[in-house]
């Protein structure tokens, strides 16, 4: 029992890891595409923080490293972004997974560390999860690596081979480390605990603020820097709804860690935890612009799926979706595709039959066995020579592209795609494509190096010797022990460092002495573990507003491209998104004063909204303000009340609005003549 409990914490199912890899890679790609339009502004030397300026400002702080610091011009940074995209795609596909996983981590850390003013909790969370999972086999399922390995391990030649769905035992998996293998590793526990820490620390922050009385969501939605366009619409939702959702989010932060840590009834408890986490992440992702944070948690939910849930999912055999597939056994590419379909068919809905034997029809049953039934009347030798034939449980015969659609329908998550494939017009087009393919299938088989005819291939000796391979040589075992030990030791150090950092940065009821080494372990990859997400200061927040004037004399904010919005009711900086809002919120602070010069230079050259505009639309002067506002209590109007403005700096002729009378708060910043 104890061993089972231990293993349930020290291992994560390979399917969960595979799903996490895919969702996380999609999140990373989305993050990259979100940053890409701002490559000039945030990453190049033409933007708000040239590389030399950043390194110079960090010279005494250290422990910030980004390979993007080597890239200066806009073009160079586009190349760097393209390289990162390729790395992310490699990770998404699960091709050379470990390599691309490590490179993805380097890419993500570099994107954050190149301009530390853009970072938020999303970066910390994504880096932490990516780092901990680096020690786990994320390419063990749902990956190109796994597919290639599976093709090499099981070389099906006949329909009997295809219908043999015997799964390797745990011992076989452990010995071969083939697709589906997932080790007993501390890293598995560490990544689970990291998710727990994120949620508990968030809850600790929220219990100290308005979230306790259910008004947290209301206040958070009023913060211009965070709220999304959808969130703005949600500001006017009934108070009860806001309160209910607010409590739900807080409850999720408290309940999910408990559910995750309960060692029994894993399937229902983890299922609830995953459901809550998905709702939590989606709510935050849709209502707010928090960068990577919400979407990383959404991906993290996959890691909490237990093996029991996956097994139950795979056992879900639906007789209505069961199909018998009669394929051309003389065609190499057809066999190859059948092997692919077999690997994708998690529910074992598909039963394969070569077109050489039409004495009956093979049909799969829920228990995995195969029975032979009478061949439906419409199936003739001519038909099976001309087209793929798919037969459903009722004996309905589907051919050509419709047959393919039926196969897709039988696969997990295939129904929507199958529906599209069956639509009139699309199905006709697919028929044409199918016919073209079917006509050339022999040539295509030859072209791709597959057998063009179905002469039974000689049995590979390796099959007979497969059992022998299970005996792992002791040197290999020793190597695995050493590498596994090192892996777990590093995961342990990383986890202790993360825990110490989390205890330092969050109002948690314990502290761990950090020391220089542990601090460095989390500082270099920017795992800063501060989880103050949506922690609202109701008394004061602010937005960055530029009162600029162009050469035609018109008032314009070069950040938004619209006239400067000083009135809290008219704020529009949310449209800038998380990157700009986090940057502007930081750069106005005294701590980041050395970074302001580059911003001033950048704005002097036009800013993001005036890029590429005609010369007379460029700025001739501006004033930069931090406009402060407080948030009224729920039900009061207006929701945001201006509290004052700080004039941060000015440029040339200054702005055009009458707010120029304010003194500059930093006396050393002089008007540039």
């Amino acid at each position, binding site marked *: 029992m104890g061993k089972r409990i231990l293993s349930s914490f020290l291992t994560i199912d390979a399917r969960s890891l595979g799903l996490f890899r895919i969702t996380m890679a999609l999140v990373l790609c989305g993050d990259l595409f979100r940053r890409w339009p701002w490559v000039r502004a945030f990453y190049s*030397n033409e933007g708000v923080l*040239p*590389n*030399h*300026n950043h*390194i*110079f400002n*960090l*010279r005494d702080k*250290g422990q910030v*490293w*980004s*390979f*993007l*610091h*080597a*890239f*200066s011009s806009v073009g*160079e940074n586009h190349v760097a972004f393209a390289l990162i995209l390729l790395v992310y795609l490699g990770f998404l596909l699960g091709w050379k997974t470990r390599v691309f996983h490590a490179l993805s981590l380097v890419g993500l850390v570099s994107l954050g560390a190149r301009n530390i003013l853009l970072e938020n909790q999303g970066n910390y969370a994504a880096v932490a999860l990516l780092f901990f999972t680096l020690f786990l086999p994320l390419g063990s399922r749902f990956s190109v690596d796994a597919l290639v390995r599976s093709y090499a391990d099981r070389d099906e030649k006949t329909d009997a081979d295809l219908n043999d769905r015997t799964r390797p035992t745990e011992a076989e998996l452990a010995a071969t480390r083939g697709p589906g293998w997932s080790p007993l590793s501390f890293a598995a526990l560490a990544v689970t605990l990291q998710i727990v820490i994120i949620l508990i620390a968030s809850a600790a922050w929220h219990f100290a603020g308005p979230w306790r009385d259910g008004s947290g969501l209301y206040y958070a939605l009023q913060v211009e820097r965070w709220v999304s366009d959808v969130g703005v619409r949600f500001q006017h939702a009934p108070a009860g709804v806001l309160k209910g959702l607010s409590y739900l989010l807080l409850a999720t932060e408290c309940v999910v860690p408990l559910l995750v840590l309960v060692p029994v009834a894993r399937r229902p408890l983890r299922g609830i935890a995953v459901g809550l986490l998905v709702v939590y992440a989606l709510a935050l992702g849709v209502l707010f612009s928090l960068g990577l944070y919400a979407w990383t948690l959404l991906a993290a939910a996959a890691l909490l799926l237990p093996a029991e849930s996956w097994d139950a999912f795979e056992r879900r055999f639906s007789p209505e979706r069961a199909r018998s597939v009669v394929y051309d056994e003389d065609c190499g590419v057809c066999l190859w595709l059948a092997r692919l379909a077999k690997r994708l068919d998690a529910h074992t809905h598909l039963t394969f039959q070569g077109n050489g034997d039409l004495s009956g029809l093979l049909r799969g049953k829920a228990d995995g066995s195969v029975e032979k039934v009478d061949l439906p009347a419409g199936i003739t030798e001519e038909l099976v020579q001309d087209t793929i034939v798919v037969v459903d449980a009722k004996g309905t015969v589907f051919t050509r592209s419709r047959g393919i659609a039926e196969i897709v329908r039988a696969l997990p998550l295939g129904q929507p795609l199958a529906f599209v494939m069956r639509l009139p017009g699309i199905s006709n087009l697919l028929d044409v494509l199918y016919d073209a393919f079917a006509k050339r299938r022999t040539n295509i088989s*030859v*072209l*791709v*190096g*597959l057998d063009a005819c179905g002469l039974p291939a000689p049995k590979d*000796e*390796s099959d007979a*010797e497969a059992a*022998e*391979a299970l005996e*792992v*040589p*002791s*040197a*290999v075992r*020793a190597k695995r022990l050493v590498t596994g030990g090192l892996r777990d030791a590093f995961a342990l150090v990383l986890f202790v460092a993360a825990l110490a950092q989390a205890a330092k940065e969050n109002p948690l009821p314990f502290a761990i002495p950090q020391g220089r080494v542990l601090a460095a372990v989390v500082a270099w990859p920017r795992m800063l573990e501060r989880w103050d997400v949506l922690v609202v200061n109701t008394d004061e927040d602010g937005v960055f507003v530029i009162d600029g004037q162009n050469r035609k004399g018109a008032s314009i904010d070069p950040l938004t491209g619209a006239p400067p919005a000083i009135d809290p009711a008219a704020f529009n900086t949310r449209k800038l998104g998380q990157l700009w809002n986090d940057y502007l919120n930081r750069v106005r602070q005294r701590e980041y004063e050395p970074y302001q010069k580059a911003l001033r230079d950048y704005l002097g050259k036009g800013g993001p909204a005036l890029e590429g505009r005609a010369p007379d639309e460029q700025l001739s002067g501006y004033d930069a303000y931090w406009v402060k506002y407080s948030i009224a209590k729920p039900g009061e109007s207006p929701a945001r009340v201006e509290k004052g403005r700080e004039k941060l700096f000015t440029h040339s002729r200054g702005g055009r609005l009458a707010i120029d009378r304010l003194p500059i708060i930093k006396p050393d910043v002089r008007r540039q003549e």
Partner: protein
Amino acid sequence: MADVAAEGEVTADAPEEKPRKDKAARPWFSPLRAAFVWLRDHYMTMDPRTLGFFRLVIGFLVTADCIRHWMDARLFYSNEGILTNHYHLFRPSSGFNFSIFHAFSTPGEVHVAFAIATFCHFCFFLGWHTRIFSVLSFFFVTSLDNRLVMVENGGYVVENLLIGWAMFMPTGQRFSVDALLRSFRERKERSSAELNARAPFAWATKPYVSLIGLVTTLNIAVIYYFNVVNKSGHIWRKGDTVHYVLHLDRMITGLAVPFREYMPLWMMRPVAWSVLVVEALLVPLILAPAGRRITRPLAMLLMTGLHGSFGVMMRLGPFSWFMIAWSFLFPQPVHWEILGRWYTKKARAWVVVYDRRSPLAFFMCRLLARLDLCERLTFEESPEEDATPALLRVRDPATNEVHDDHAALAAIARSLPAGRLVWPLFRVLTLGLSAPLFGAVARRRDALARAWGLGAKPRGREASAPPSPLAARAGRVRAGLREALVAWFFVCAVSQTLNENKSVPAPFKHQQPWLMQATLGYPRMYQGWGMFAPNPISDDGSISVDAVTLGGRRVDPFTGDVPDLNLSDARGLGLNQIWQDYFNRIRLDRNKVFRHGLKEYLLRWHEETGRPEDELVAFDVYWLRDQCPLPGQTQPYKHEKIAILTYRKPGYRPPPGNPPLPPEPKVESAGN
């Protein structure tokens, strides 16, 4: 004759080869086609053995060069040195300046970067994942150059070029870990008969046909051509070059000092002229389409002699050694055959009798069969009646001389190519314990075989399947793209050669498009060839710092001693290439902006020594220059002391008892 196949490979002299299509080409096209075939056969076909050996040479050199720079990493490549990364990013030395080393700031970070770079170079040397590490080597080599362009000389450019061209060659096809692993994968011997059947792998013998062969040949010929024609000055004509060069104290090694002191002028002149003659001779020797059996080895010999003598006499960094490395692209198949025949005669033949029951012994034989390129070994199972056979036994078939185990291994090693060199190294690496180690292995042969899984029967496919038509087509497309890229680099190189060499007539000079500038500029693959041209340098110089510490000590922080402001008595300055080139460049007005970094470094010098009293309160950086002695004389003349940077700590007054600070000299120009 050879036929172009996928990946630019060719099948050579295959008897079953179909008649070439070019023979049936249309008449108007056939002369062009014939010209191409001639060019291809003479300049574009490369032997895989040559490429493999070339990789070993440049892999070793590039690793050594990286370690050479690593030793000066703190001072030249970190932010505690003379040029911080942020300053260089702020004021790049050149356009198209990119270096991954710019991302590394502290000495610790820079050491990590050097460790990664060295690892990549070493993997390239070994030929493990050769293509990937070839590209990474190129990336790190050019990055290192771009990080501190001030110390670049012609050698760096040659290194960039050579490692760049190597990316387009299949250098891992022979003498590499990749080739070894591939051979293990594709040939799974099961008996002594199979061990003795040594049919070469097709991929290991196919000549490589690519435009890169022509490019590298032309490039090295162009280097020598311009090195000759650009040396048009009177000193070269008079033959005084060797005299002047040997008196460049900042550049010479200790070996050059006795030469300049004892070699009479009448002897130096023929040496100087012979340099010109050799360089001029090398052009036809390299390009000769016929008689290459003689011309190519002769060119190798001359290049090794010429650059070897430069290399041991002067501190030119990578120049000499990479020029010699370039010559390792010259060997033709005939040379390998001659070498093979010579070694076959020289090396002793052995019958290797291995323990028939031991998988470990069989594995060792499989390895030996792959290393035995001259086929001096024949394998034989131990007799069945022998209950306790030696793990390995060798028997001379002629004399029946027999050695067992470690002695057998030693005998085998000496019969393998390069075994005579590797065996002593192996002995050193095993601390002389190779015999007891081998004994222990022999005693535990079964346990070790089980531990490494050697007992399992070989599985998997016997040989690599021929590529599918689609894969072959994709291979041809890849080869085509690669050739197009090489062609583009070739065009860029030609353009750069015309623009950069002074002896090219003005009408040939032209404006390069942006893409061409970027192609050449980022990897710094330039083509200006005029070392010591039109005349050798006749003035010598170096940097000396006259600094005063807080404690009142006068010191040169670069030496840690009392400043030496007179170089006329120097017998070589003992500076390595990085130091001497840095000193020589920082004095120039065009590098004035980088003196800021030098000043910052000197102001932090006490942090390096760890003694607060070493803080510099005043310093004057001098370029000390003198003219090399005139021919026939031994003493330099016209000694000058030019201040290029000065500093006095604001408000500092020496404490009582300490001498006053020296007056601040006027900063002047020490060259442009």
